[in-house]
């Protein structure tokens, strides 16, 4: 998680992608392993909260808010997000050869990939996680 934050600071897209996949794989490994301990499941809980909420809605959003200000011609974050999500041809054409715009767009697409990740019935396999987590919860848990 620290590495993901570091590579987000660096905006190293390859490493960001690798680290999100690594976290996802570890999360799945914990859920798949019947021998996972209560401690393991809390690691999975940490990954779920970090990847599903903190990274996408706090860290990535903050990174986009900060960096979009460096794009020229200037574009607001809302207009940037709208242009990418709506595939707005006029705006995308305007920034076609803009490296900063392209890099932020690719970063945002990685983030969107997490937001749209569904496994099992729920977003980020959350239903399976909750089921296993409750089952393993110690009686003296508080």
């Amino acid at each position: 998680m620290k590495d993901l934050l570091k590579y987000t600071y660096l905006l190293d897209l390859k490493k960001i992608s690798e680290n999100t996949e690594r976290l996802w794989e570890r999360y799945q490994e914990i859920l798949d392993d019947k021998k996972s301990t209560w401690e393991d499941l809390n690691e999975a809980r940490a990954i779920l909260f970090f990847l599903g909420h903190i990274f996408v809605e706090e860290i990535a959003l903050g990174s986009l808010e900060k960096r979009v200000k460096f794009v020229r011609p200037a574009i607001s974050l809302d207009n940037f997000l709208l242009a990418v999500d709506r595939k707005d041809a006029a705006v995308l054409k305007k920034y076609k050869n803009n490296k900063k715009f392209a890099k932020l767009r690719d970063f945002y697409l990685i983030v969107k990939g997490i937001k749209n990740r569904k496994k099992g019935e729920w977003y980020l396999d959350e239903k399976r996680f909750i089921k296993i987590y409750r089952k393993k919860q110690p009686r003296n848990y508080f």
Partner: protein
Amino acid sequence: MKRLIQGKAFIARSERDYYNINKPIILVARNTHPDIVIAIKKIKAIVTEVDNRLCHAAIISREYGIPLLMGVENATKNFKTGDEVMVDFNSKTICKIK
């Protein structure tokens, strides 16, 4: 974008609820879920309790051009499915009209 949208509220609490949307509605949820796409054509507007430009509802709203009102506290508790509601995007409010 329309500044006032009126319609029947539909409260979505789980991903399965999206499969029960069979007529045009105003979706009210804490946040949305990827399964929303199966009912997307019947959603006139989305109202969420969460408020974040990268939350799932915000992304879906931009992608499909569906009006979105975020940050409505207790929306899923204050309204129930079938309520006739009006969403006012100027004042950023939703109210029951019947």
